[in-house]
């Protein structure tokens, strides 16, 4: 029978013990004596969030296909178990073998959002691994970070041995092989790091030195080890059809956020919204073949027994064979009790028809993400969605029986004025009016329009990486303006307004564009007890403010400061394919309020074409389809939005 790291008394006392048992359907068990490398994959948040992440499922499957590697998982222990583990000195363990994480060869941590950074320190700390990478020995695993936040790894640099820049499917096996070789030859940890630095996409932070100008900005970042490259290149899967994709994803016992089969239909987005980091990071846009997706859907539903399948991508409507795929799913699974969920679809006759087949119109809601309240500001952010398109889509939906609409906006975008903020209320009002144009006897009661605003955080590798971020007070003032304007509207009773918290946004902004200096504040905040910062009930802003003060860090340097176009950013040593020159041109076009066509309509020469794949001219893997080139990015989001 399986041994457990925690005893019955602990497991019966804590919330949801199933978070810590492993043993899920399709979990991979191996004999530790028969593998050479043990890899522990970590999502530094609670189990239900971490288990919902597709990337880990892909890498877990990929690693475990190798006979010489056993990949296991670990998530952040929730606060109840965290306390018990500290009191009783129980080391953090991996779910499958229940063995201590510290005994592994690798600890891979995915960096999906900035607000999980204190949880990374928790995982290291509970594992008994020194927080500072340079203090580690062969008694500790190699700690490697990856995922979207790894494109600005500097705030975490001192805590990691390595970072993997780009998509995990390409370079990991070379890294594993290098590790095996160095260990076989009894080589040192330093020797391994030097080998790793030569593998494309691998960044070894201890091999670089940074010098600063007097004003605190970066003067230069120089490799100080001959094995370290000056630029680290983002890794990209060139053929998304013939690559790793799990046929037997893990099936948790407890309900997790993404309790369904996830089918990633494509990677990347052709739209080029100027605030969107994913839209730049995952260039070029690449599709998986219809045949591969149909096969994967069948196999994954069979092996998991899930009752739902969801398509995943940044903009599903741009997938060239969407109609065929959706038709296949409905025909094959529609009568087998399997729900089909279609996030991020543009609202048009096709999507409304499909949605009416796969969901209960009365219960479901339509989601639009105009992101900005006025056409002027939508042009600034390059969100090509127009008011006419939104009203047309909403009108069609209302006539089809829907009466719930969700609208997503951002506040604090560059060049935003009070008029733009009030435009949010006016757009909601126009949608409500469109609903009440339907004769009373033909409509389904009142309509419910939910307006949600988040606060804009400038992210690295976007055209807005130069933007000044707002202060907490400015953010709240903007939300107040929207709130008051909504209350002025005729149909205010049909409009509900939610806004995001400002403190946590400011913190996110600090780490998003942070440098190596902010790691000190991170460590202090963790030591003061900050953990699970993305959970509002656990977020303690006052502790963070103390931590920044003690670390001698002025948060405004990272947020509200105006950055010049010649500034060297902490992330400039990473080459994501998209050039800084292109981003700068887009930053300028934003100020000119000029829309840039999407990748299919006209290549803008962003730089990603050098990967010779996907949508880029000359890659040959996709024909230019005119029907996808329409500049309307009207969205339907249903169910689990990508974090």
């Amino acid at each position, binding site marked *: 029978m*399986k041994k457990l790291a925690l005893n019955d*008394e602990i497991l019966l006392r804590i919330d949801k013990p199933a978070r810590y048992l492993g*043993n899920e359907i399709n979990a991979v068990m191996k004999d530790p004596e028969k593998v050479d490398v043990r890899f522990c994959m970590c999502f530094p948040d609670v189990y239900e969030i971490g288990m919902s992440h597709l990337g880990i499922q892909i890498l877990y499957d990929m690693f475990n296909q190798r006979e010489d590697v056993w990949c296991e998982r670990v998530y952040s222990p929730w606060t109840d178990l965290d306390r018990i583990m500290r009191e009783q000195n129980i080391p953090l363990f991996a779910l499958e073998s229940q063995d201590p994480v510290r005994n592994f060869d690798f600890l891979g941590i995915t960096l999906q959002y900035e607000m999980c950074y204190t949880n990374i320190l928790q995982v290291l700390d509970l594992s008994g691994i020194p927080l500072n990478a340079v203090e580690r020995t062969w008694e500790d695993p190699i700690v490697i970070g990856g995922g979207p936040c790894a494109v600005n790894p500097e705030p975490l640099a001192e805590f990691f041995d390595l970072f993997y820049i780009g998509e995990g499917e390409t370079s990991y096996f070379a890294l594993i092989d290098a590790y095996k070789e160095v260990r076989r030859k009894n080589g040192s940890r330093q020797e391994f790091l030097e080998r790793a630095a030569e593998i494309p996409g691998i960044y070894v932070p201890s091999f670089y030195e940074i010098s600063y100008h007097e004003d605190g900005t970066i003067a230069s970042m120089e490799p100080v080890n001959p094995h370290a490259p000056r630029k680290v290149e983002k890794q990209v899967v060139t053929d998304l059809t013939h690559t790793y994709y799990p046929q037997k994803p893990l099936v948790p016992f407890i309900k997790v956020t993404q309790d369904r089969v996830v089918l990633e239909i494509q990677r990347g987005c052709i739209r080029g919204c100027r605030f969107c980091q994913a839209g730049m990071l995952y260039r070029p846009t690449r599709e998986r073949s219809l045949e591969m997706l149909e096969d994967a859907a069948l196999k994954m539903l069979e092996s*998991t*027994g899930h009752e739902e399948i969801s398509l995943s991508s940044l903009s599903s409507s741009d997938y060239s064979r969407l109609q065929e795929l959706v038709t296949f799913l409905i025909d094959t699974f529609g009568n087998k*009790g399997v729900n089909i969920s279609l996030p991020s679809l543009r609202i048009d006759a096709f999507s409304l028809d499909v949605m009416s087949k796969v969901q209960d119109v009365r219960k479901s809601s339509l989601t639009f993400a105009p992101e900005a309240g006025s056409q002027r500001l939508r042009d600034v952010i390059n969100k090509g969605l127009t008011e006419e398109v939104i009203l047309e889509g909403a009108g069609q939906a209302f006539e089809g029986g829907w009466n719930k609409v969700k609208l997503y906006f951002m506040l604090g975008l560059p060049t935003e004025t009070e008029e733009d903020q009030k435009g949010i209320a006016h757009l909601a009002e126009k949608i409500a009016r469109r609903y009440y144009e339907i004769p009373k006897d033909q409509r389904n009661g009142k309509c419910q329009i939910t307006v949600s605003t988040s606060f804009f955080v400038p992210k690295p590798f976007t055209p807005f990486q130069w933007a000044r971020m707002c202060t907490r007070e400015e953010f709240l003032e903007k939300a107040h303006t929207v709130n008051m304007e909504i209350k002025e509207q005729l149909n205010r009773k049909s409009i509900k307004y939610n806004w995001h918290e400002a403190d946590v946004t400011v913190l996110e902004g600090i780490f998003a564009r942070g440098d190596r200096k902010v790691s000190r504040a991170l460590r202090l905040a963790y030591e003061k007890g900050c953990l699970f910062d993305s959970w509002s009930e656990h977020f303690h802003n006052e502790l963070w403010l103390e931590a920044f003060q003690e670390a001698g860090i002025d948060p405004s340097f990272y947020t509200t400061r105006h950055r010049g176009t010649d500034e060297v950013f902490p992330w400039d040593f990473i080459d994501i394919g998209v050039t800084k020159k292109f981003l700068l041109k887009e930053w300028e076009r934003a100020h000119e309020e000029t829309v840039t066509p999407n990748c299919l309509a006209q290549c803008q020469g962003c730089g990603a074409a050098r990967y010779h794949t996907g949508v880029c001219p000359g890659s040959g893997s996709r024909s230019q389809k005119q029907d996808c080139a329409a500049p309307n990015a009207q969205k339907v989001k249903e169910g689990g939005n990508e974090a």
Partner: protein
Amino acid sequence: MKIRIKFRKYGIMKFIGHLDLMRYFQKAMRRADIDICYSSGFSPHMIMSFASPLGVGLTSDGEYLDIEIGNELSSQAAVQRLNAVMTEGVEVLSFRRIPEDKASNAMSLVAAADYEVRFRDPSILPENPEKLWEAFLGQAAVTVVKKTKKGERELDLKPLIYQAEWRRDEDGAPCVFLRLSSGSADNVKPELVLEAFAAYAGFALPEFALLIHRKDLYAAAGAAKEPRFVSLEDLGEEF
């Protein structure tokens, strides 16, 4: 066709609660490709009901769920198919046809349950527990205070304890056998009996002191005065 499935829950699956176990079986039915029937309506759900929820921390050799299936497949083949998709900690023991009438539903039939109760740390017991146990059971009434949703009420456990024996297992550790009234009417949890015993015998029963194992679930047969109990499994037949 109505089917009753008997399964065993052991090992680490004891930490999986009832609602999650229901979800587990729904997914297992799909993985095993059992032709299970669904309710009608816009969001159909599997026709599946469990006899009696088992609390977190308890193990069992006799758990039941009833389903409806469309096609004919043999009991043996179904057990094999389900066990091929189980995880360690759940084993399907039988898959039997039950009568079509509504009265045969496992949940409404449950009248009694057998339990074995062990002590995580037997040293908490007083000396001569057997003797105290006999005296405890020899009382005219075993009165306990039962907490319900509406508040607290006094209850005499004695008529609801159908069998109670102080036994020793192979290695000599005390192991209490209990057959208790179960189901929707007078459900008696084994810990309630042991707590009453601890109070009577004057020893403390700390949290998580008991290791409870359910042996089987029964339906009532025979006259009300002289109840006979039939295992829920025996109400179905192999096919």
